[in-house]
Structure formats: C-alpha cells, structure tokens
C-alpha cells in the first residue's frame, strides 16, 4: 500500500499528459491540464497523511488529543487549487480568442504563425 498512493499521483500526471499530447480540442486540453494539476493535490495530500490522524482543525477537537495530518501540505494544496483555477480561466479566455480568430479549436490545425 505504501508506495501505491504516490504512484497513483504519477499515473494521473502521465494520463493527463497523454491527453494533452493527443488532444484535438483546446477545451479538452485545458481539462487535461487540470487533471495534471490534480495529480499534485494527490501527491501533496499523500505526503501529509499520518496513520490514524484527523483534520488539523481544533473547532471540535481538544489540542493534543489525536494525531493530526500535516497542515502545511493542505495549505499548499489550497494554493494549488486557486492557482489552478486562475490558469484554467486564462487558458479558456485564450481559447475563446483563438476560436474567434482561427475558427478552430483543434491545436493540431494551428500551425502557421500569423502577424
């Protein structure tokens, strides 16, 4: 079980990259990028897990009564989610403009550079 969680994160990353490489639609490619980003959430949260631990929130828990999972990686995952959402938004905005100017969403049809 030990290494499997980390390997799952790596597997997610590779699947997402395969999707990016073979993508025929830019919206699909943006989705693949989100999956690639999601693999980092899995890796971060897996690194922070501790056997038998609970959430690092004391609103209903006496301090020191139970082991806690690592809050630092959870905070990193939160940052990761926010940055991922902003990247998705910008890429979709770019996709809209590409669709308007080149009338295609297929990245493989976007070959020439035009000034």
């Amino acid at each position, binding site marked *: *079980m*030990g*290494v*499997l*969680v*980390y*390997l799952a994160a*790596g597997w997610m*990353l*590779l699947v997402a*990259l*395969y999707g990016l*490489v*073979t993508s025929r639609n830019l919206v699909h490619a943006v989705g693949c990028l989100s999956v690639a980003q999601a693999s980092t959430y899995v890796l971060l949260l*897996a*690194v*922070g*897990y*501790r*056997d038998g631990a609970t*959430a*690092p*929130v*004391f*609103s209903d828990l006496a*301090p020191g009564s139970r*082991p*806690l*999972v*690592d*809050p*630092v*990686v*959870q*905070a990193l995952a*939160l*940052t990761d*989610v*926010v*940055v991922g959402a*902003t*990247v998705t*938004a*910008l890429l*979709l*905005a*770019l996709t*809209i*403009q590409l*669709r*308007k*100017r*080149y*009338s295609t969403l297929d990245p*493989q049809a976007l070959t020439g550079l*035009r000034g």
Partner: protein
Amino acid sequence: MTARGRVLLFGAGAVVVAVFFGLSCGELPRFGATAHPYGDRAVAASLAHRTANVVSSVNFDVRAFDTLGEESILFATVLGATLLLRLARDEQVRPAPAEGVLPTTRLLGIVLLPLALVVGVYIVAHGQLSPGGGFQGGVVLATALHLGYVAADYRVLERVRPLAVLDVADSAAAAAFTVMGLAGLAAGGAFLKNVLPLGTFNQITSGGTVPLFNAAVGIEVASGVIVLLAHFLEQAVEMSGPPEGGGSAEEEH
C-alpha cells in the same frame, strides 16, 4: 510533427518520467508515517496564535507572504481575462433576451440565493475556526449570485451584479492585504506580522489578523470570480460578432 510521431516521443518521455518517479517514490517517507516536522511546528505555531483552523493559520499567518503572492496571481488573472475578453472592433454587444423559467425554478432561486449568500459570509467569517476561509467562502459568494442567472435570466443577474463596484472592491481588497501587511511592519517590525490581540481560542474573534486577511481575500475572491465569470458570460450571452471564423478578412483560405 505527425500525430504518431508526437505520441511516440511522448511515450519515450513518459517511460523515463515513470521510471525515475517510481524510483524516487521508494525514497519518500512511508505513506502515513508519523514524522511530520513541519506539520508539528505549524500546529504549535497555530496554537500559540490561538487559531483553531491550522490550515488558515499556515495560509494567513505563517505563510501569509505566499498568500499575498497567490491573491496577486488571482488579481492578475482577473486583469488578464478582462483584457483578453474585451470587446473587439468587429463585435457588438446586444441586450440579452428575457427568458421564461419554471415557477418552481424561480422559487428555488429565491429561497437559495439569500441562503447561499449567508453561507458564503459564514464560511469567510469562520475561516480561523473551522474548514473554510476567504478563498472557499469567496467562491460560495460568487456562485450564490449566479443563482440569479440560473433561476431567472441574464437581465436579473446584471441587476444583482454591479460590475463597476466589484472591480473597485477587487482592487481595494487586494490592496488591503498589502496595507495590513505594512501595518504589521509598522507595528510589529515584520511584514504581515500578526500584531492584533489574539483573542480567545476557538472564538470568532481569535487569531489576531487571520480573520481580517480572510475577509480581504473573501471580498477579493468573490468580486474577482464574479468579474471573471461576467466576461465569459458576456462572450456567450451578449456578444454578437461577425459570423463564424472571426475576421474573415484575415483568413486566407
């Protein structure tokens, strides 16, 4: 490069990544291991500053400088999307048509919209106590407003969404984060230092500056997401441009 060549190149690269990633996974701490030196220190720091939600303490106290960068990224994205999705020379805005909705859908919206707004404010305000905070609550607030679009129509959404005010709120909240950081510098000698009285542990007024940073981020995220979605919705609902393919004068086929 052909599609097949691209897949072959990716396959070769993927094998290399998979082998080295797999090898390095064996060197990582065991999954579920008990040694988390940074986590233990973050919990201690959070308890010392009487912040019940350790993740909030990490984000808005210990790592507040990183969060400043994070919310700056969000602000830059709103600016970027505004720039990218501005009205082009060959496009016009036409008023969105009024649309009919089922009375039950309308009722759901009327009941759910205020409820969702209150939940959003609750999540922002209790960020230092329970899971939640400015980022999560801000998204709830922004989503709540869009119930107006789902349960009525685009005209209603435009009425409940004062974009000019939200643009200013977004910038002001982003600036407030920095100003509070400077206040920490002036009062405590370090940028973003938690200088306010820490309050009583597990009460809404605990955590010093953490609730204030949460509020600033909550306002920024809520207004930022609404502005961002407004630009996307404008493209989908209101924009009438030249027929498919945009600038046909530029097309050469």
